[in-house]
């Protein structure tokens, strides 16, 4: 199956291992991701805070590019995903918004392509059974707290691929890889990544609360689907805290026995190798 692939700005820098692992895992599952030619920033968390037209226009431009390619669009970053889905939802359901977007981005919206998060593709298009069949080194015994973050499953009317309050897709996927997802209450509680530069002291409190809750639930590590969450949870962690935070695609790569996987994990700020060695998963 072929998809257009929108990496987004973070996946070229702070989220580079998410980009590499997504591409590798997609390859292993027989999914072909073709990078969207000429993609530009979706506007992320800044455009909608300052200018409504920019937020819609910048997202719509990328939907226009994807429309030209004629393939559904796969977006790994939760922040990009939410902005693109929101713009698509507005154009699809509100003729006035559609007209505004068409004027801003200079195109004609057809509604023919769909936008998916990579997690959604893995869980719904590939399916957990198929994922389980690709596992060579099951993550047996590894207890993970699945952290969806706030953006991935909200607002529910925009992309209802999972439950907005207590989502389960990452948990099911982790279980398919042989890991043990722990129940906890902070699956979608915001980690404050958007304030990481401007209000680090506020963000440190949010992160400390989340990581402590994951520890309390018995987790050895957290699993995320967002480059902003992954970086923020590691960068703003309390000094004494060293719980690793993985992308779900990295865990898939490890479980599939992909030899590139250690290269991705070396990019983390929190060294995950001692933990992986404990479970004989490092080599």
């Amino acid at each position, binding site marked *: 199956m072929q998809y257009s692939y929108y990496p987004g700005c973070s996946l070229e820098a702070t989220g580079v291992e998410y980009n590499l692992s997504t591409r590798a895992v997609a390859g292993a599952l027989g999914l072909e991701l073709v990078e969207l030619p000429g993609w530009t*920033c979706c506007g992320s968390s800044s455009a909608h805070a300052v200018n409504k037209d920019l937020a819609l226009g910048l997202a719509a431009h990328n939907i226009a590019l994807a429309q030209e390619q004629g393939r559904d669009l796969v977006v790994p970053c939760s922040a990009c995903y939410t902005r693109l889905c929101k713009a698509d939802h507005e154009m699809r359901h509100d003729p006035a918004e559609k007209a505004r977007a068409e004027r801003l981005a200079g195109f004609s919206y057809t509604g023919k392509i769909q936008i998916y998060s990579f997690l959604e593709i893995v869980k719904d298009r590939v399916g957990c059974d198929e994922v389980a069949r690709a596992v060579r080194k099951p993550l047996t015994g590894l207890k993970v707290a699945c952290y969806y973050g706030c953006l991935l499953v909200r607002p529910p009317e925009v992309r209802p691929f999972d439950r907005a309050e207590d989502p389960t897709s990452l948990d099911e996927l982790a279980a398919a890889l042989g890991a043990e997802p722990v129940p906890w209450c902070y699956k979608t509680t915001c980690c404050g990544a958007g304030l990481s530069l*401007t209000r680090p002291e506020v963000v440190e409190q949010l992160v400390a609360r989340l990581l402590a809750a994951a520890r309390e639930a018995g987790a050895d590590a957290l699993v995320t689907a967002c480059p902003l969450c992954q970086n923020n949870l590691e960068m703003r962690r309390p000094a004494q805290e060293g719980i690793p935070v993985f992308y779900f695609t990295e865990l898939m790569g490890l479980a599939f026995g992909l030899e590139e996987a250690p290269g991705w994990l070396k990019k983390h700020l929190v060294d995950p190798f001692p933990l992986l060695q404990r479970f004989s998963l490092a080599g």
Partner: protein
Amino acid sequence: MATATLHLPAGEITVDAAFREEVARLSGQPLELCFQCQKCASGCYPTQEGDYTPNEIMRLIQYGARDAVLRSRTIWLCTSCETCGLRCPNGIRIAEVMDTLKQMAAARGIAPVGETGPLFHNLFLCEIRAVGRVHETMLMLKYKLKTGNLFADMKLGWQLFRRGKLPLVPRLKKDPAVRRIFERAGGQG
């Protein structure tokens, strides 16, 4: 539009009914339905250091307290996490309201003393306007230079750089399509 003075524990505020209508129109949210159940505030961690809780912002908008709301710290702490909107029994998308308030404050150049949120967003959009994408290394550097806070996070920056996560070579290509969107949107940057 009629204005009046309202005496609150926090002090005297000038009210302006036009403000309430403006926020309702721009955000598209049924502000008048808010009945102060505080469910939005109870799940809102990001704004806990703010001057008002989200339900207090809603009430101040209903009063028409333009100045108090547009100058509040709370609006810049909102991360648009959508927790509140998901739970509001009256279907008010508070994140949309917060966005509208930020847009109004940014358009007027109003920000509380020491708040660097607007500066950050402006630098972010400048990056997009210049090369179509955000070069995270440049954005962080520019923000640090502008706030004169170059040394905070230096160690973190170095750790990221060493791991190849802050590439130095920016993509220098202008994107005419993006420029046009900025022109049509009358955007900053």
